[in-house]
């Protein structure tokens, strides 16, 4: 048996099995849980990278699970889009796995084994969501990801329980609406295989059942990705979680959901169907504009950096949904590129903030005084992430904004263009406020006594992933033309 041909399923089965291994091992020796997790994530990263290379060289892969032929069996579909997102997930998961060691030891010392097991299972769920080619299988994977993420977020203790409960209620409603939508699709098409449904939809485009399915799936995913009117659960859930969990959930959950909605909208319903349903002046892009403005406004009034970042995520979701609905190639390119860029930038910010919180015990802006002298490397990594969010070249954030704004101009959606610029401006204000306090806001005593502030960096296992994430933000920005020409053009070119 050729091992390379089995790579798509190895990406899922390997971490799934090692999740159980981690539970078993941690029963005997808790110290082994972390190395095993890092090993698993490294192997997963290598497997996804291998899949990506094979997709670039040989084109999309359709893998039959247990060799049952579609549309009856479940198949994994790995094209350029899903391979890209899978690699992004495995990179972020690997970085967070390395980062987790010290914070988990400090925050939840007696539940280390449970944490790593849930962490790996959640990664499996996310990878499955990107790779699967079956609409019902996607629902199961959404629930696997959600259930593990509820448990992970609840590790935050005290306030986290109530905010996680709210997330659980809303998240389940979202997933149930998706399930209902799949039911309506099944009534009309009699199939659950995405590629199979896509071939049947054009003949049914007038059907009101298909329209109901489209709306239900769309709204279900909007709830899961915290798109504007449904964003209420996100800030509390992510703020009250432990820093490791926020650094894992914040970059990946919303972004993978955006990926799923691209998959369903463009590859199941098809762009022709999707855009023929919403014509006229009122369309989804306007909702995205409101999402961006509301997210930016609330980010502006926060005094806690972690809470501020969660509102920035809501604005970023607006970017991606807007770009997706612009209806032109550049807009979709921007959205796909932003999935990768935003995941890595958010990871960078949350990892740096997690290190700062580990040393300072606080994430309030007012407590950041003189942080540059105390933790120069961590703070520089934070600045790189911030530069990405503002959109300063050559970071990845600049290029995704460039694509999105060009797409907005091409589509004549001026409100979207203005919202993007306003949001960049707000991000600049937000981060310069932190920079000001971090560089110049030294404590009073230090000025009088002229005592040299002790450098007090976080341990290497936290510093390393933070710096790597910062380097990736710049690296992704510098290799933008490669990413677009090798991967994104292949996907977008087949649609427009």
């Amino acid at each position, binding site marked *: 048996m050729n091992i390379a041909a089995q790579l798509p399923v190895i990406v899922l089965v390997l971490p799934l099995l090692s999740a159980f291994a981690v539970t078993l091992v941690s029963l005997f020796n808790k110290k082994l849980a972390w190395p095993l997790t890092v090993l698993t994530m490294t192997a997963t990263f290598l497997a996804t990278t291998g899949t990506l290379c094979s997709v670039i060289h040989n084109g999309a892969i359709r893998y039959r699970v247990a060799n049952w032929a579609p549309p009856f069996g479940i198949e994994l579909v790995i094209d350029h889009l899903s391979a890209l997102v899978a690699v992004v997930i495995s990179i972020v998961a690997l970085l967070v796995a390395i980062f987790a060691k010290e914070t988990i030891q400090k925050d939840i010392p007696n539940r280390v084994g449970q944490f790593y097991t849930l962490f790996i299972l959640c990664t499996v769920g996310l990878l499955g969501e990107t790779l699967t080619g079956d609409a019902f299988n996607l629902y*199961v994977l959404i629930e696997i990801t959600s*259930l593990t993420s509820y448990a992970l977020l*609840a590790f935050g203790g005290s306030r986290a329980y109530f905010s996680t*409960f709210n997330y*659980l*209620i809303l998240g*389940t409603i979202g997933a149930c609406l998706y399930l*209902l939508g799949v*039911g309506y699709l*099944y009534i009309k098409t009699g199939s659950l295989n995405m590629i199979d449904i896509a071939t049947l939809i054009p003949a049914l485009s007038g059907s009101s059942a298909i329209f109901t399915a489209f709306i239900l799936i769309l709204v279900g995913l909007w709830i899961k990705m915290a798109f504007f009117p449904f964003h209420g659960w996100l800030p509390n859930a992510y703020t009250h979680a432990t820093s490791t969990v926020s650094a894992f959930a914040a970059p990946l959950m919303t972004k993978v959901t955006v990926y799923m909605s691209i998959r369903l909208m463009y590859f199941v319903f098809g762009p022709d169907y999707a855009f023929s349903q919403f014509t006229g002046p009122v369309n989804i892009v306007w909702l995205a504009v409101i999402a961006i403005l509301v997210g930016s406004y609330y980010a502006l009034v926060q005094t806690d950096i972690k809470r501020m970042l969660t509102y920035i995520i809501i604005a970023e979701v607006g970017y991606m949904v807007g770009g997706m609905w612009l209806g032109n190639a550049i807009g979709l390119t921007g959205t796909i590129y932003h999935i990768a860029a935003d995941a890595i930038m958010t990871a960078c910010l949350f990892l740096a903030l997690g290190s700062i919180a580990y040393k300072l015990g606080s994430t309030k802006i007012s407590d950041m005084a003189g942080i540059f002298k105390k933790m120069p490397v961590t703070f520089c990594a934070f600045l790189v992430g911030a530069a990405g969010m503002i959109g300063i070249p050559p970071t990845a954030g600049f290029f995704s904004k460039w694509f999105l704004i060009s797409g907005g101009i091409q589509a004549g959606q001026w409100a979207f263009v203005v919202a993007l610029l306003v949001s960049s401006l707000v991000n600049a204000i937000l981060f310069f406020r932190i920079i000001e306090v971090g560089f110049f806001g030294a404590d009073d005593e230090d000025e009088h006594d002229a005592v040299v502030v002790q450098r007090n960096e976080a341990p290497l296992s936290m510093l390393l992933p933070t710096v790597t994430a910062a380097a990736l933000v710049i690296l992704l920005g510098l290799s933008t033309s490669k990413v677009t020409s090798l991967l994104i053009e292949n996907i977008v070119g087949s649609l427009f």
Partner: protein
Amino acid sequence: MNLIIAKFNYVLYIVLMMMGLWAMIAKSNLIKKVVGLGIFQTAIILFYISISVKKGANIPIIHHHVDPNHAADAAHMVIDAAKYANPLPHVLMLTAIVVGVATLGLALTIIQHIYQEHHTIEEDEILEQLNQ
């Protein structure tokens, strides 16, 4: 009226779903919210089971006693799909039930922790404590 009788299951599932949704939004007691969640999920199960029904159809167990030596018997293998209820939605709902159980268990565990933290499971009282 005829529409309601003809599509009774579908009307019922919408009513159940709205009941669940109302409980989740309007009830202050967290346990009642979880009960609402359960009703919501069960309504979808009812929907899926309803779509698999066919009038006059049998259970989908195919009974064939084919003699491999007789090629002519292969005609018995031909299956008339209209004679059997669609088994797929049932299978899908088994998975959905499992998901529902897991969600319920997790929600109850979280409520237990909320009670230990706040000594109440009334939403408005918890919010009052959080805003202090």
